[in-house]
């Protein structure tokens, strides 16, 4: 008889303890390995890889070099499809976006987690932000027709679509562009959703092509825990050879902002108190984020109507006037 019953139980536990430790260690290794492999894209083969990490707005001089008929042709042919992701709790912001900047999109579609009686929307019937984004983009792709550029935003985003068109004027939508306010998180460079995401039709086409591939772009996300949907998007796009790029003006200032004008002005008041409005933000800014619904109406007045008599503006371009925009 090798061991007494009590001793046998004790031995089982101590051996079991090592077993448990082994399991735990193995589990940790597994998680770490998954983490590392997800972010390790250095060796993938891509045929057309964008080497630059930021994209610039054209300068006035560049545009003036084009003949006038060409400028007019370019500005009249550029079409932006706006994808705005909403939930019932966003109702006040949703209303403001409907009444303000979304009217300047050639087509604006609101994708809602569920149907809402008050406003028209495409219901994606899910509250999961990543699945919402996937479904919205698939729907946009299927319904896009002649829209070459896609602009994705939340209802807390405020966008100046004419400045977006200005930025995209000299860019080819058959190239894979994925632009906005870029953030680096570990090895991943992604575009922040709240500052607005721009996709060219080529980029969206590639994304839609990989949505069905669950090894590259699964619905439940590639990690054990959920990444925010804007990071998931970046991961999927990377698989198709599309990389995030930060958009900047000719002075190097960000064109897309995930912060509000107030926030940026306050920072400038602290850093450059003699030159606040000059240095806070780009003259051709496209987005700000975090303004209240009322404030969005004020911004429409400030951006589109209030002006100093006698100042020359950019008269070399004509963007198609928006329909029923009675507050601007």
């Amino acid at each position, binding site marked *: 008889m090798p061991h007494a019953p009590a001793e046998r139980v004790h031995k089982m536990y101590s051996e079991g303890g090592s077993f448990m430790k082994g399991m735990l260690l193995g589990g940790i290794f597994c998680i770490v390995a998954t983490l590392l492999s997800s972010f390790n894209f250095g060796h993938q083969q891509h045929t057309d890889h964008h080497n630059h990490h930021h994209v610039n707005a054209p300068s006035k001089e560049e545009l003036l070099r084009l003949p006038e008929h060409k400028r007019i042709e370019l500005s009249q042919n550029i079409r932006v499809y706006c994808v705005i992701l909403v939930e019932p709790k966003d109702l006040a912001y949703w209303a403001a976006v409907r009444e303000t900047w979304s009217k300047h999109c050639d087509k604006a579609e609101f994708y809602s987690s569920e149907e809402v009686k008050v406003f028209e929307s495409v219901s994606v019937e899910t509250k999961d932000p990543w699945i919402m984004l996937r479904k919205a983009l698939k729907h946009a792709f299927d319904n896009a027709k002649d829209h070459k550029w896609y602009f994705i935003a939340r209802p807390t985003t405020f966008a100046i679509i004419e400045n977006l068109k200005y930025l995209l004027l000299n860019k080819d939508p058959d190239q894979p562009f994925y632009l906005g306010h870029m953030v680096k998180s570990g090895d991943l460079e992604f575009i922040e959703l709240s500052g607005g995401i721009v996709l060219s039709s080529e980029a969206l086409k590639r994304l839609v092509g990989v949505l069905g591939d669950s090894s590259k772009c699964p619905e439940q996300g590639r990690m054990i825990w959920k990444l925010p949907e804007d990071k998931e998007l970046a991961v999927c796009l990377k698989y198709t050879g599309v990389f995030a790029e930060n958009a900047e003006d000719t002075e190097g200032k960000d064109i897309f902002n995930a912060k509000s004008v107030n926030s940026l*002005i306050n920072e400038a008041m602290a850093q450059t108190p003699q030159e606040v409005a000059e240095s806070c933000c780009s003259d051709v800014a496209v987005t700000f984020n975090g303004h209240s619904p009322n404030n969005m109406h004020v911004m429409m*007045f*400030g951006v589109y109507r*209030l002006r100093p008599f*006698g100042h020359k503006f950019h008269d070399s371009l*004509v963007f198609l006037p928006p329909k029923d925009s009675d507050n601007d």
Partner: protein
Amino acid sequence: MTSPQSHRKARQVQSTWGRRCTVLLFMSSRADPSLPAVGLNTSEGRGALYRKTMAAFTLVHDRYLHAADWFLKADDDTYVVMENLRLLLSKHDSSQPLYLGRRFSPYVQQGYMSGGAGYVLSRQALRRYVAGLKDGTCTHTSSVEDLAIGRCMESLGVRVVDTRDVQRRESFHPLYPELHLIPGILAPSHWYWKYSYYKARNGPDCCSDLSVSFHYITPEDMHILEYYVYHLQVPGHHRDDTVDFLTP
């Protein structure tokens, strides 16, 4: 107009719209060379406001009468688009006794101008005003500055001007933009509805594209307005070029 406690606000005026004045003077109860602010040796507070105004205009008349054709009085929380003010004034004759701003209605028959929205006296109006202070035609009738000076202007034969644009939108605003632009935000009992000389409109028709002033502007909002008006551009957007001020 500023005060020792709010020289910081005055500094924001200086680094934004104040630079566009031909002459910029900060009037305070105490001098402050760092701004620079002129010391009027008066008290501060609402009760002393009209005395301060009287002292300020007297000083301007005595030292700066020929430095300019028009004299704007604003607060350190007023934001002014100077180019639009100059356009408005170009339609009027400064050798006439004229008084321009946001017209308020009760108490004074021809109306009086909101203090906070800023008001302008022509050179001739300034002459008559200071003469009136000196010969007793105008006295300290009230500490409510805009009302007191409005009564005085009427008694001196200084005429008011309709400063609305051709679409009948107001250009001087006694409140900050949100309160004018958002319908329903001001309670029906708010003083604004009672005091507007012309029927007040809220919503997009409140404000001219060539607006001249807004009031209750915080330092942060001064710079925000500066950014919207002078820096943020929207190429290719059709502006309404028919907007102009009413001709007399």
